[in-house]
């Protein structure tokens, strides 16, 4: 057991070094900083106009810390896209590239269980995504501290839920990547699944059954910004409420994301164990 943990630690750092030195990481990091700068500008320039914008969008506020919640909603709405793109950058080629670039000949032949290789790589992949999310979140916290002097608890819920979303979407991406032997197919499938399939399914289910498909990952992940204001932009806007999502909603959505992680990782382990390089 101790030996396996040491192997996992070595494998984790092996992959982490390769990830954080990659161009993908720096590109992603750079883009997230650019987005942060744009939001800093928005926060300082339009803070007093936020309630007007909200009214124009048909949201009636009850007052109180409405500006902070609305600004938190905007920052977190953007933040929720980061894990999606980070998982495309780091997760899509995670397994398929081992086959396509033939690094599998190097790692599959080592006396190390494949589950440790997979776990080490998965942890490394989510770690670099955490670095990006954390940088963005620290900037967000800094801006809120400066503007409001006090930080609402929703800010921390949102960041923690985003970390959970990183874990679940990375697992789904690893699963898709383990199906393919070519990176391009993995990239395309991940993007189509998340940006088309999930959203198409949401719209169809909303239209046909007049209910929000809360069990889809894109819906569950919306909790990362719904902790500020419980607004979810579907075709019928069925779940709209200008108050923060309740604790029950937070827990149930967190569980759904965790379930996605468990199922996706389970399938990935099975596929990775059977993977071969012709």
């Amino acid at each position: 057991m101790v030996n396996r943990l040491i192997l996992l630690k070595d494998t984790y750092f092996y992959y982490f070094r390769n990830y954080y030195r990659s161009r993908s990481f720096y590109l992603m990091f750079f883009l997230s900083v650019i987005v942060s700068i744009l939001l800093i500008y928005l926060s300082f320039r339009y803070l007093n106009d936020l309630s007007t914008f909200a009214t124009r969008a048909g949201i009636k506020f009850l007052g109180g810390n409405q500006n902070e919640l609305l600004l938190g909603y905007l920052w977190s709405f953007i933040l929720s896209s980061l894990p999606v793109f980070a998982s495309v950058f780091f997760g899509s080629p995670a397994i398929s590239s081992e086959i396509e670039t033939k690094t599998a000949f190097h790692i599959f032949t080592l006396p190390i269980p494949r589950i440790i290789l997979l776990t080490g790589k998965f942890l490394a992949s989510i770690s670099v995504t955490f670095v990006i999310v954390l940088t963005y979140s620290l900037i967000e916290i800094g801006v809120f501290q400066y503007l409001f002097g006090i930080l609402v608890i929703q800010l921390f819920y949102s960041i923690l839920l985003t970390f959970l979303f990183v874990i679940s979407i990375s697992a789904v991406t690893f699963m898709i990547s383990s199906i393919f032997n070519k990176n391009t197919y993995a990239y395309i499938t991940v993007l189509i699944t998340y940006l088309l399939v999930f959203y198409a399914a949401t719209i169809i289910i909303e239209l046909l059954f007049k209910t929000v498909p809360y069990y889809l990952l894109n819906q569950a992940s919306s909790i990362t910004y719904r902790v500020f204001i419980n607004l979810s932009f579907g075709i019928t806007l069925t779940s709209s409420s200008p108050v923060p999502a309740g604790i029950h909603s937070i827990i149930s959505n967190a569980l759904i994301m965790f379930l996605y992680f468990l199922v996706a990782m389970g399938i990935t382990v099975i596929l990775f164990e059977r993977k071969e390089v012709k």
Partner: protein
Amino acid sequence: MIEIEASNLSKHYGKLEALKHFELKVNSGDCLVILGPNGAGKSTFLKISTNVVHPSSGYVSIRGTRVDEDPMRALSSVGPLIELPEFYPYLNGVEILSYVCKVKGANRETVSSEVERLTSELKMTEFVKRKSGQYSRGMKQRLALACAMAMDPEILILDEPTFGLDPKGMKEFVNIITDLNKKKRRTVVLSTHLISEAREIANRVIIVNNGEKKVEMLNDRDTKMMKISLYSPGDLTFLESENVSIIEGKEEEVTVKVPDKMENDQILSLLIKNGIRVKWAEPINSIEQKYLEVVE
């Protein structure tokens, strides 16, 4: 002691049978070379032996442990080099070798000394600290061999280790492998399609074709043979009186075994003296002879 055993090993890729009921035993200290044309099944056997590919039926065991059942234990005494492996491009040679050493059981102290030994033995000092993404093919091949040799494994499984190297690099690799086998008594299983390489390294050769083992033979390095092409078939029985035996004769083409003390040009003189018109003649070895028989 049997180090590697393949029993009734088969592998299908869809309808293609890459290996058919393949049987093999490799003894401790052997240097077994697997020869065969492209697509013969030699790489498939080595990939199954190193857990890169799973068998459709049968198994490979290494030191009594089946690779498909307990790959971690089976591969613990193996240094593998399969095809030309790629490495993670943002890691340098030292980091890659350190990781391989750690996985093979090295502790903190041994890792650096082992990396130093491998770097110097494989002449990688100049480039080992560069990121592997910047390596040339030859550099990658050196790093791959270094990974295989890390922690001095008892068995080396090498799939075309000299492929893509320049002649100097090939010679160096052959010398390293020969030293490992002869001086350190390491068991080597190596695939190649170069007969000269097999002749230089092997003590035993198997020739595979169409997924089947066709020939298994000892490498008789000292036997001199010659292939002679004649303008017209003639009576060559006079050669036997000079202790030159005819191994194979196909009308205008014959293969003869040359006695140790006789030079090749003496054979030619003998033929000409007896009125045989020689179109061309070339020295060959027994491996080449068998290989051509199998492939043709």
